[in-house]
């Protein structure tokens, strides 16, 4: 299960932010945006996050995951379309291959909620 490593990577990135702050903030929630065209399974990520943050600076912190769909843009047809994951990625109208991905590759920390004591 690679969400374990994904969580490790997430914790490292959040830690970098946390340590760069002047006052040590208490992190309340981490908000993620995870696209459908990534290797991340949100449910597994939540599970891994809860388990791996125990006894760390992120223990008890809420993980919020917002999913974004896979949306591609066809240059020939000048329109967006939704590829069928696992079946068909080319444009349903003209069969051009999936050139531009407009949404679905996101794998980012949108924001962090924190309080100061």
């Amino acid at each position: 299960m690679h969400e374990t490593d994904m969580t490790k990577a997430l914790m490292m990135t959040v830690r970098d932010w946390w340590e760069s702050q002047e006052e040590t903030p208490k992190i309340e929630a981490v908000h993620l945006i995870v696209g459908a065209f990534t290797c991340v399974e949100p449910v597994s990520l939540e599970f891994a996050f809860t388990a791996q943050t125990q006894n760390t600076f992120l223990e008890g912190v809420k993980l919020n995951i917002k999913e974004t769909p896979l949306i591609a843009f066809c240059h020939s047809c000048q329109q967006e379309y939704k590829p069928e994951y696992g079946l068909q990625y080319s444009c349903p109208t003209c069969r051009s291959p999936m050139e531009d991905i407009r949404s679905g590759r996101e794998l980012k920390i949108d924001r962090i909620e924190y309080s100061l004591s």
Partner: protein
Amino acid sequence: MHQTFDAALEINLLHANQAGADRNRAHFDRWGITCLNVMSSPGAGKTVLLEKTLAALNKTLKIAIIEGDMTTELDADRLRKYGVPVIAINTGRSCHLDSKMVSGGIHRLEHEYDPNEFDLVFVENVGNLVCPAEFEVGEHQKVALLSVTEGEDKPLKYPVMFREADCLLITKTDLAPYLDIEIERIEANARQINPQVKIIPISAKTGAGLETWLNWVRSQLQNSKNPVLELTR
């Protein structure tokens, strides 16, 4: 009063890994080394591909291997027979290499050898068609392997790997006649997802396609260091 604040980060979840990958790439660039990240599911033929590649290029190029696929210790030993440095990385139970692990390998290359002498580093990733695609290690190009026995539908099922790949090797083509499979269909499926990918059907057993692959590898070299090769290309 309990007051909460919001910090808009809008940074990649893998930011820390990405920063490490950029540092690794900067090292390679400073030394004039091209780094190729070789990825596939277990058993698609990464190690045999590297064996054939070493046998062909070993004389003209200085090559090192960073070996992450430690499912068997045998992989590293097989490659050491070609007289090249094989830096084995202990990945633990990790299902992919990350930039920190590869950074450890780069440090060893720097301290045990003269990195300026090297032209090419192959990173043999852990056998896995999912995770390695998301974790950059500092490579210049990503090479994915898919063997014909894995099935035509794999690019559709594991699209991220095939979207990220710069070069796709369809391996074990010598077995294709014995299977209900069309190499053209594998290619078409991969191109749906990644129209730019360079596709090379190859058989390590018969040698078919090997020269095309070697030429692609040569074309990736950092030019400044190989003026002679540059002229003969």
